[in-house]
């Protein structure tokens, strides 16, 4: 759902840029406060990790395949702010190196995937995690949040296209949400499986599970 250039009207991508710049600026400040001078190396390597993890793609139907978004995975592992920063860097990298997503549309792509997909996904995860408790909560929360993060990000993408007058809302919203409801199943399954493994092996690396030592 990386929006290329030419699909969005100027008022839409400009608004998206303003929202994204403000939010990511705040996230950068929060992350810097949490990680201090460890921030740059750690965020850089984690961005490279999410980028590598996105290579995993899973077949949907009819020959199409979706790849991991990794938003909820990053947010649960690193926290919502650092997760959003990592996803933003991955999106900038994809835009510059692979032309996956346009330059003027980058603000909208950051808004959809790094902010709504990642921070929004984390909010859903956090609520469910609190309701269901530690182990079960992690799995249920991550599954639901991962599915929703993909579907909500795709729906926002459809809304932006409709606002721009590119596609009629009545067609593009069901199309995007429908395809991504399927991709979301893959996202949810992989996110839960990866998180369960890390919870078993190194629970101290999961944000919010860690002792004070890990928060530096």
């Amino acid at each position, binding site marked *: 759902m990386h929006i290329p250039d030419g699909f969005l009207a100027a008022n839409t991508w400009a608004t998206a840029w303003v929202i994204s710049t403000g939010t990511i600026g705040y996230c950068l400040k929060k992350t810097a406060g949490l990680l201090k001078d460890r921030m740059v190396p*750690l965020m850089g*390597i*984690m961005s490279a990790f999410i980028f*590598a993890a996105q290579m995993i793609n899973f077949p949907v139907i009819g020959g199409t395949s979706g790849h991991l978004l990794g938003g909820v995975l990053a947010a649960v592992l690193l926290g919502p702010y650092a997760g959003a*920063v990592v996803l933003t860097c991955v999106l900038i990298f994809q835009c510059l190196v692979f032309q996956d997503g346009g*330059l*003027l549309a980058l603000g909208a792509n950051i808004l959809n995937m790094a902010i709504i997909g990642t921070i929004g996904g984390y909010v859903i995860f956090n609520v469910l995690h609190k309701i269901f408790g530690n182990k079960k909560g992690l799995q249920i929360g991550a599954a639901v949040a991962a599915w929703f993060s993909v579907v909500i990000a795709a729906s926002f993408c459809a809304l932006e296209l409709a606002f721009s007058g590119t596609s009629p809302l009545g067609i593009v919203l069901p199309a995007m949400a429908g395809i991504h409801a399927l991709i979301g199943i893959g996202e949810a399954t992989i996110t839960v*499986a990866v998180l369960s493994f890390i919870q078993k092996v190194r629970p101290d690396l999961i944000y919010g599970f860690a002792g004070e030592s890990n928060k530096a």
Partner: protein
Amino acid sequence: MNHSFIDEHSHIDSALSRLDARIKIISFFAFIFFIVFTAPGSILSFALDGLLLLTLIAFSKIPISYIFKRCLVIVPFILMTAFFLPFWQQGETIPLFQIGTFQANVSAAGWIMFQSVLIKGIFSVACLTLLTASTPFPQLLAALEDLKFPQLIIMILSFMYRYIFLIEDEAMKMWQAMKSRRAGGSRWLHLKAIANMLGTLFIRSYERGETVYLAMRSRGFNGTFKQSHNFELRRYDLAFLFNIFLALVSIKLLDNFLGK
């Protein structure tokens, strides 16, 4: 392992690669701006944009097949969001093609919108491809920083660039090891193996991040970098910038007077 996906063509010595990276960024960003703001249906404008693009591709000496392949990146998105536009009936319709007695009609507004979105998308991708394929990534980042792009993001991106090969290499090795052990079957059957692989990759990456930080810390790193890149504007760079803007403005004017 095969991962020469970044900087694949940036070693090519050409008129474009010798340009100051900052000038290149400004020129291509301006070009993308112009393309995006072209009114739907201005065929003349699109044709001239295409001509300018082809000229730049020729200057860059980058194989056109590579740029074409890169342009295919937007195809899935088009299929998902814009493919149905011409068939979305509203207002007058125009005939698209005729087979025997069967005639396919498409909506005029939808068809123009589809055309414009397709051309704008492809041209912008070609612009970005030209920019990044003719500039080594570290130089691109340095130029962006010089143009007052947020420094923290640039620092993270330059770290990402340094480690992406290592992490990708590790991922590919694990993937190969896993493939050599499994006995066919769909990817869903091996979900647990894939998940454990990703989990292990995360833990190794995280630990590598910590080690790298400690190594940097012990050498006096305090969270900030002193960048030392000195870009120098030559007459050649300014001439290029002037010509690009001249071309873009002329396209705009020509379209205003001759188009429609």
